[in-house]
């Protein structure tokens, strides 16, 4: 019988613990990116790694995202398993070619002979007034291009298991952590995400959605930082007698379409909630899946709630208008079951 130590961890701690455990297990695992060393990562995802593993394995880079993300391509082909941090997902545009034309496609273009076991982790999300170039989610855009696995944890338990699995994958994985879930003292953060986490390493397979809340009147399909907000809205409408199923997708690639369809089959009414832009993204893909595979089960039009195709504005009142709030989610649920 094995004993497992379980502690409450913030998501930031869960992520850095996962990386540390994989670095201990496998000398090929290294970390690099901007301010991942002495600073410990601007959002704490690499906290404690430098003292533990030294400058040979935890490496601060110049502000040269194309070069240091592209370096992960060559390094992984030659035996390393880098975990690379792109400080904010919003900066992807300076390095996208290395990401999507090479890291993502080389395995295919080589007929399977080249592998890039690389985790590209990055901070997403708004809610703290950092405006249009520091508050986006954007995972829908990466999910659109083939060759990248897309992981978006909603809590510390998932964050650890998904990170360990991501590092062990032989494919490039983009790992998106929402700043408002990390449990950073200085950032508004959802306590919901700080949960019990076993000390031992464990994996959560990619492509398996999680039913975060059981319900029968309606289903909300969502991901990342919207999960706790949807759960709060669920509590609120429960008092009005509305029972809501909540599906946390956890990964967009692979997408657990079966779970999406199952939720519709069960509740017949579906709302999709996302912090990414509304059009041509996650909410569209989920709704389309239902229109293809669950049409006969739908008793009401699909509803979508996401950032309404505007850049994230700076001012608090404006940002609060565009990022789905618990209120707005509850309203959508009410409209859905009406």
């Amino acid at each position, binding site marked *: 019988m094995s004993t497992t130590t379980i502690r409450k961890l913030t998501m930031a701690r869960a992520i850095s613990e996962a990386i540390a455990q994989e670095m201990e297990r496998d000398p090929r695992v290294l970390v690099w990116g*901007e301010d991942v060393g002495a600073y410990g990562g601007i959002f704490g995802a690499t906290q404690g790694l430098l003292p533990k593993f030294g400058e040979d394995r935890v490496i601060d*880079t110049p502000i040269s995202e194309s070069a240091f993300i592209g370096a992960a391509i060559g390094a992984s082909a030659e035996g390393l398993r880098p975990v690379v941090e792109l400080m904010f997902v919003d900066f992807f545009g300076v390095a996208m070619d290395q990401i999507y034309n090479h890291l993502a496609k080389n395995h295919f273009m080589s007929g399977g002979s080249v592998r890039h076991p690389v985790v590209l982790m990055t901070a997403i999300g708004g809610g*703290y007034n950092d*405006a*249009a170039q520091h508050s986006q989610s954007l995972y829908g855009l990466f999910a659109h291009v083939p060759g990248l696995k897309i992981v978006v944890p909603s809590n510390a338990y998932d964050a650890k298991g998904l990170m360990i699995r991501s590092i062990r994958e032989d494919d490039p994985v983009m790992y998106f952590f929402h700043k408002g879930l990390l449990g950073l003292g*200085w950032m508004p953060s959802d306590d919901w995400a700080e949960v019990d986490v076993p000390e031992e390493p464990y994996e959560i397979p990619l492509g398996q959605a999680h039913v975060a809340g059981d319900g029968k009147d309606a289903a909300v399909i969502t991901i990342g930082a919207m999960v706790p907000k949807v759960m709060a809205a669920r509590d609120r409408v429960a008092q009005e007698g509305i029972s809501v199923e909540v599906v946390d997708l956890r990964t967009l690639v692979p997408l657990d379409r079966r779970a999406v369809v199952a939720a519709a089959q069960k509740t017949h009414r579906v709302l999709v909630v996302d912090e990414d832009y509304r059009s041509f993204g996650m909410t569209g893909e989920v709704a389309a899946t239902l229109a293809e595979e669950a049409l006969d089960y739908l008793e009401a039009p699909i509803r979508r709630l996401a950032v309404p195709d505007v850049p994230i504005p*700076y001012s608090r009142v404006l940002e609060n208008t565009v990022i789905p709030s618990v209120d707005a989610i509850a309203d959508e649920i009410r409209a859905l079951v009406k």
Partner: protein
Amino acid sequence: MSTDSMPSDELVSLYRTMCVIRTYEDRLAEIYTEGKTPLFSIAAGPVPGEMHLAAGQEPVAAGVIVHLRSDDVITAPHRPHHFAIAKGVDLKRMTAEIFGKKTGLSQGKGGHMHLFDPQTHFSCSGIVGAGFPPAVGAAFAFKRQGEDRVAVAFAGEGAANQGTFHESLNLAASWHVPVVFVIEDNHYAISVPKERSTAVAKNSDRASAYGIPGVYVSGNDVLAIAEAAEKAIARARQGHGPSLLEIETTRLYGHFQGDAEAYLAAGEKDEWRHLDPVPRFRDYLLHSGRMTPDKDQMLQAEARALVDEAIAFARESPDPDPADAFTDVFANA
């Protein structure tokens, strides 16, 4: 202080600009903590979000921009206030923007890293290295339109390792357009020291890779800066093409407010204090008899009044309307 061929009133005017910047940044540093204590919380208070202050870097803004006209273009980085102030961006509307108010330059949509002022041809961006290409484009427009205007792209020494630096300097040199690239070397990019990220000691030495002049100005010395900038800007304005300046300066606050700077060696920051340019320039002006103590008092009082006024304006201004979030995505709807 290096050469001082400038008339006293111009020197005092440089000092005045530096005082306004310093007063502004110190005041913002204070205000930024409002509502954020005892536990620092980035999203709380009248000024939320990231805040990158430029106290200590005043000479770069003052010394370069003194040579610019209001129709010259500036592209600035994430640490933009000193440049905006020196360029003459309306301090009230800028401050209102930083407070997220309807009266702000962008009606609260932009915020501290996204100050746009078409009147003074000022803009900035939160993406490191992003200001180089637009400055080349503006300079190209001037050349094409037969205007003697100049564009200046400011960026930190960390930004000089971005691909846009290289591409833009090459394009500017190939197109022979009136642009000056100014690198602020404050020794750090967040926690990463220059010598660990940059393969050469001076980015100005990289100018030779584009066949353009490159000058390093050390000591955070506003007069030396003004002198070097004068040449570079005149050169551009007269149609002789781009150049590159790198200017040693110092970051007196952390990278952003809330940065504990744990990555600095003990005492490291004290060494930079000698580069604090405001008291040094003040002393120089006083000791050389170019400015009287009374004048100094007056200027400081003026700076405080200006800043007070801007902050009062911002505080009293209304928030945007929630519906404003949906406008201005497109000009032609």
